[in-house]
């Protein structure tokens, strides 16, 4: 048997030994774990950003209302001043845009 054949035979035997063990599932678990962590970090940052933006929203509308009292008469502005988040379509839209922005960042080439 030549050296090349011996190396190839030895290598094939090793490959057969490694073909069906727990290595693949260990690697995949590591990969998905890292992905999940990244998602939590990005999602957490998005939520904090949205919360900060939402906290500024009533003050912003109030400032408009002070400048132009007629705006405060609008149902949207009234609900925003009272910080009724569920009734503020603009805030919902802002959150939706934040989510879309975050999701786009996730799939951008080179983002991960």
């Amino acid at each position, binding site marked *: 048997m030549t050296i090349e054949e011996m190396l190839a035979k030895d*290598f094939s035997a090793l490959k057969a030994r490694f073909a069906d063990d727990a290595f693949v599932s260990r690697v995949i678990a590591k*990969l998905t774990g890292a992905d999940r962590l990244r998602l939590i970090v990005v999602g957490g940052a998005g939520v904090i950003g949205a919360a900060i933006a939402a906290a500024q929203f009533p003050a912003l509308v109030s400032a408009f209302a002070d400048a132009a009292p007629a705006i405060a008469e609008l149902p949207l502005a009234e609900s925003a001043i009272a910080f009724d988040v569920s009734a503020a379509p603009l805030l919902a839209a802002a959150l939706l845009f934040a989510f879309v922005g975050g999701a786009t960042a996730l799939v951008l080439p080179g983002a991960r």
Partner: protein
Amino acid sequence: MELNDIDLVTLAKAARGSAAFETLVRRHNPALRAFLLRMTSDAALADDLAQEAFLKAYRGIEGFRGGSSFRSWLFAIAMREAQMARRKDAARLRLANASPGEDVAAPAEFSIDLQRALLTLSDEERAAALLCDAAGFSHAEAANAMAAPLGTVKTLVARAREKLRAAMSVEEDGNGAENGAACA
């Protein structure tokens, strides 16, 4: 129909977390681990290096442009990892290189002799011989994986074969003499 590596890389780039990269891991892990085991003589270290190589390949898959085969790109990452590990843990590897450890796989009867013969080679010669003669890489693929010129790889392979032939014939002569002595 089985997808080729380039298709799988394209899918893995398009949809992270898809099964495409898992298929690549499943396809290439036996050869990569066998290569690293024969390079390091340490099964646990070989598995750690292979795992790190796959993690780095996954994170850096956008950097793979298809200029070489996926496996040569993957093996290049693994070789860099092995080099870094060797620098970090030179003393431990020197110990491992001194004699094949208990966890060195010996699937065939000639494997221990072959392993000893492999350890007589330099790292570059061993890598070139393993890639071209064991893993079935072309010289060009091996050159990509080793980040070395094609001519250098050809020289390394030829020199490694010569050294292995010499080492194996010495082993055989030694075994023959021992057997002869035992019989006498």
